[in-house]
């Protein structure tokens, strides 16, 4: 077990790689009632084309299967695991993203028992034809719920505009049609390929005893007899640098139109410190242009083009990266043009000065420290970072080193007409 100390942040992180390859991290937090654990596999909605375990050929699986598997893992021969967690006073949940599936619980008592339940249920699948069929109704309703949500439609509409091939454009839950094809055998195939401990990470945060918790996990894993498994081979089609579509309008039952601009990033096969710097710098760039302290934001607000719902974000993982900017607007066309204009001008440095950079860095450091109040944030983000070979606790030092040149270079690299798109939701 290794100990990593973050002196300024007054945090200590403990790490051990189990013999079967599972990465385990424990961050003790005194004073909190709650302990929180996430057990995450590096397997998300984009992993739909891969070599299944022990097979030589690549195969494609139905859209939405990673998320379907997440739902089904909670069900066992003798009932569902939610019941067991709540008997032990814990609350459990799970989520599937583009690149990860995470299972988690929080509890304020009986931590060891709950942790064992978490590890054991994820490592002991039980799928049957009957329960798979039943789940199609439930997930069908989840898909319909999102279909009625205009913000969700706008979000996926923008991503779909950007990508020709990459599976990030597919809705995480799939469609009612695509999940209809899912069978119990396919679930086992995906499970066996992606849920090996060497493809997973367990993160524990809370008022726990480090030694005994690590021992519990070690003993649990050693008893399970996992055999070594090679890294999963995934396949992604060649993705052009340009957007697939520069514009899309969705007509929905809304009163206020919505606008979202998407900018597709290039050179998206970075990882580690390169990726960390790119992601942080791009977010600083967006904040300098569009944050509430920016005169450009003020101008958009004064002109009535945006309201409090306006937001912006940049995200990048292995193989895809994009900036999204937008919100509700009663003048969707004017807003679209204004945003394109601001982005284009930023290539020449407009809106990007030293003073605003230093202020924005301070702001980001503050919000990072604030987010360390949240055990959920730490566990989820640490895992995401680790899967991309980055360290969450490097954020402050990378932010402190950013220069105005870095930010101007981001603007030059990112902004290009053929990599920008807009999606609007307009009233029917």
């Amino acid at each position, binding site marked *: 077990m290794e100990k990593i100390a973050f002196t300024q*942040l007054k945090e200590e992180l403990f790490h051990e790689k189990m013999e079967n390859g599972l990465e385990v991290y424990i961050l003790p937090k005194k004073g909190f009632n*709650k302990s929180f654990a996430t057990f995450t596999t590096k397997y998300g909605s984009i992993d739909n084309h891969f070599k299944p375990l022990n097979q030589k050929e690549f195969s494609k699986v139905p859209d939405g299967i990673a998320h379907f598997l997440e739902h089904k893992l909670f069900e066992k021969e003798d009932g569902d695991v*939610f019941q067991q967690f709540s008997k032990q006073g814990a*609350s459990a949940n799970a989520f599937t993203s583009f690149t990860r599936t995470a299972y988690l619980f929080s509890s*304020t008592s009986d931590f060891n028992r709950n942790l064992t339940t978490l590890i054991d249920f994820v490592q002991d699948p039980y799928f049957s034809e009957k329960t798979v069929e039943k789940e199609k109704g439930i997930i069908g309703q989840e898909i319909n719920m999102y279909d009625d949500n205009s913000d969700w439609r706008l979000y996926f509409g923008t991503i779909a505009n950007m990508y020709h091939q990459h599976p990030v454009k597919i809705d995480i839950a799939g469609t009612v049609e695509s999940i209809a094809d899912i069978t119990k055998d396919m679930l086992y195939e995906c499970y066996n390929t992606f849920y090996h401990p060497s493809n997973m990470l367990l993160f524990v945060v809370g008022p726990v005893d480090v030694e005994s918790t690590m021992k519990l996990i070690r003993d649990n894993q050693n008893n399970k007899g996992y055999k070594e498994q090679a890294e999963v081979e995934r396949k992604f089609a060649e993705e052009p640098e340009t957007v697939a579509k520069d514009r899309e309008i969705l007509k929905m039952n809304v*009163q*206020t139109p919505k606008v979202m601009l998407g900018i597709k990033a290039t050179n998206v096969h970075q990882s580690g410190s390169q990726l960390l710097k790119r992601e942080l710098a791009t977010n600083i760039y967006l904040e300098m242009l569009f944050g*509430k302290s920016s005169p450009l934001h003020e101008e958009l607000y004064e002109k009535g083009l945006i309201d409090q719902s306006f937001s912006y974000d940049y995200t990048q993982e292995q193989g895809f990266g994009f900036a999204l900017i937008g919100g509700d607007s009663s003048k969707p066309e004017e807003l679209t043009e204004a945003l394109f204009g601001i982005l284009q001008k930023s290539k020449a440095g407009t809106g990007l000065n030293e003073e605003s950079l230093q*202020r924005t860095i301070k702001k980001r450091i503050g919000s990072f420290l604030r987010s360390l*109040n949240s055990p959920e944030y730490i566990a989820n983000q640490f895992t995401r970072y680790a899967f991309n070979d980055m360290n969450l606790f490097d954020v402050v030092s990378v932010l402190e080193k950013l220069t105005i040149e870095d930010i101007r270079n981001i603007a030059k690299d990112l902004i290009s007409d053929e990599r920008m798109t807009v999606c609007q939701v307009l009233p029917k």
Partner: protein
Amino acid sequence: MSIASDTITEKSGYKLHVVRTDKYKTNTLVLKMKAPLTKEDVTYRALLPYVLQSNTSKYPTTPELRSYLDDLYGAGFYVDVAKKGEYQIISFTIDIVNEKFLSDSTPLLEKAFGLLSEVIFHPKKNGEAFDAKTVSNEIRSLRQRIQSISDDKMRYSATRLVEEMCKNEPYALEASGNLQDLETITPESLFTYYKKMLNEDEIDLYVIGDIDEKEVEALADKYVSLKERVPVSPPRNTDKDVDKEKEIIENSDVKQGKLNIGYRTNVAYGDQEYYALQLFNGIFGGFSHSKLFINVREKASLAYYAASRLESHKGLLMVMAGIENANYKQALEIIHAQMNEMKQGNFSEEELDQTKAVVKNQLLETIDVSRGLVEILYHNVISGLDITLDDWFAKTERTTKEEIVAIGQKIQLDTIYFLTEAEVQG
């Protein structure tokens, strides 16, 4: 040992609540202003905090104010307007880094007090009126926010249920106000209301973090100055005998039908039976081991979400489920059947113990977050009581199955609301 309690000091015109803890990297200030929910004031109160957070006399534009916040290591500053029972509550929250985690050691807590004082007591004004441009911007923004509620169909359906169920009661009003009244507000009338609010609201200031009580009190005395007042409390309005159940079906362009059902429980926060009501709700629909989740979702596959929650200060129990338009009758039957099971006491001791454990877990988790802790402590301000968390836990633990069944006898179905695309066979 008591669990997370606050030290309360009576100040002129407000109460100061201090909670010392070293578990956060930030210190948090929350100022809450409370007044009865009324048709006359509701939209003023919905608008006012957004005007105040836009700028101040010292920071006359939003970029100037927000740049100052950025310089304070990105101090978080949020406003919120909420409905709790028949009160409308405005909250101002500042969350600021504790400088001991920074290489720069400028004391930040005093800056946070200064900022709060600046925003609340020194707005940008023009004689006896707010800055006209700021008001018109915020009216526009609020108009869009009100409209966006009906653009979110899940929220819209929940709102429509309350409107129909609580017709002619103040509770039917939305905390975000209404469009008709919004158009009549002027910079002058808003300023008049602002002064009334400062003089008449019941005000509570919470300060949470690794702080010194004496220092906090001195800062509060320096930055907060208010007149003495006697806050107004509307009469209790939580009990109602339903003479006729209502069923309302409305059509909209939705892929999924949104079913919302409201019950009167005739029990509110602070009542002896409240602990039993909380457990009743937990067994019925509050969690993923509850009857609604198991029967509507897991067994019948009708829904992704099927749950219930309490409006503690109004004595309501609300059910929500998203279902296929054609499954309305079947879903309703299952939900009614679960309610009957509850009323007849058809739940096990095991279900009860399980629910006690998760209710306790939920409360303990909530108070791990400073803003969650404030919400829990603030229940006592709304109810005018002094219930400690230890009390809450002890009474929950002692609650018996009989007490929960007795609650069932008080619960009455009031209104069923269904938002659907298809025509439903009556």
